[in-house]
């Protein structure tokens, strides 16, 4: 359990450093080390999770490069000037987003929901928020299950209907899904309470990620050290 807190602490330090340091090289170095750590720790990640964040980072770079700056323009794209100051600002934003996102994905990929839940149970978080977190986790699966079932039913009934009918049907089916999930949730809640609720024992034991935390911390700490050195140089 102490390893979990150490990992959380290190990640918080890295994320704080990424958003406070003005140097883009710092964020990129940390990001590179965390990316290597992904492979070394054999984290199961889906690469598509990087696409939205990277496209946002690229968009921020383009927006800054074309709008920030007062010095003489380096280049003109039609009426849009490209400034040196804007390029640097855009590069810094790009690096900060990329470094931050890779660190976050490395951390969450390492621990997964089980690890996060164990962490949350041990932290001084309001008990209501923890309860909501744990119940929502169960309801996401429940809602997905209902959604799959109802969508299949809708496709069978409305395969050839026009879009107005489909929209009206989709909205009422959304209502059905919510109500069915709520009813099933109430039953589950009763069953859970009869069994004695969720005790901390439900998430105790040794998990697979615990073996990888040490290795992950070595990668993160080395990344932090090398990035700090680039800052000093």
């Amino acid at each position: 359990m102490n390893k979990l807190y150490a990992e959380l602490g290190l990640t918080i330090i890295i994320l704080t450093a990424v958003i406070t340091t003005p140097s883009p090289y710092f964020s990129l170095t940390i990001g590179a080390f965390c990316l290597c750590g992904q492979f070394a720790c054999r984290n199961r990640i889906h690469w598509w999770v990087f696409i939205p964040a990277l496209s946002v980072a690229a968009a921020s770079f383009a927006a800054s490069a074309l709008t920030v700056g007062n010095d003489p323009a380096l280049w003109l794209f039609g009426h849009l000037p490209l400034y040196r100051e804007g390029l640097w600002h855009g590069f810094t934003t790009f690096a900060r987003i990329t470094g931050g996102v890779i660190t976050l994905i490395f951390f969450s990929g390492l621990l997964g929901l089980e690890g996060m839940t164990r962490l949350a149970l041990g932290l001084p978080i309001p008990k209501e928020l923890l309860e909501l977190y744990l119940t929502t986790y169960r309801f996401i699966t429940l809602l997905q299950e209902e959604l799959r079932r109802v969508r299949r039913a809708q496709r069978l009934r409305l395969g050839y209907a026009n879009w107005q009918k489909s929209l009206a049907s989709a909205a009422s089916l959304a209502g059905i899904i919510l109500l069915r999930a709520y009813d099933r949730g109430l039953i589950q809640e009763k069953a859970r309470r009869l069994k004695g609720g969720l005790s901390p024992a439900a998430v105790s034991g040794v998990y697979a990620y615990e073996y990888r935390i040490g290795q992950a911390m070595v990668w993160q700490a080395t990344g932090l050290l090398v990035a700090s050195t680039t800052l000093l140089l």
Partner: protein
Amino acid sequence: MHLPEGTFPAFQAAAYTGLAATGIWWGLKDYRQRVREKRETGTMVAVMTAMVFLVSLIPIPIPLVGSSAHPGGTPLAAIILGPKLVFPSSLVALIFQAILFGEGGFTTLGANTLSMAGGGLIAWLVYRQLNKFFGYRVGAATAGFIGSLSIYLITALELSLLPATSSASFLLVFAGIFAAFLPLQLPLALLEGAFTAAVVGFIKRRRPEIWETFAHEQTLR
């Protein structure tokens, strides 16, 4: 919405986190009280949180803005649960999205919670006013539409407050960012309005007891 990790410098991230924490504290106080009175409230809040999580899951990146568009789900949650519970609900949905899909981030959690819950709060205010004069259908549809757009209005405000976003004036930057959201968000907001009205109507007709239990007599106090 879904501003990724590292978008804001430290002082802004801290300020948004502080503001969001106030809203969350407000929401948790209400949650505690309502769960004590009626145990089922906890279940309904969790269902709505799961709904917000699923509805706002598929982001469509918006070029040149540095963000993405998606339906919010919080306008519907606010109409059913009330304005206060939307804050913890948005927070939990965003935490799951950050952990499972790398959408959003921990340092932008405050800013993202503010825009999601802010949209819900505005939707609830609109619904409350319009419901009195035009009935629940018009109220819910308009609230869904305005609430969905408000999420992006708040995000545009947060992005335009970034230091050195541009050498142009604040208002121009703000209008520019919001305008960049519009081509994708306007149709999404229209759909969300129709969806909100239909779901509210469905619950009111089929299960009025649920409506009476959760949505009746919601106040800002």
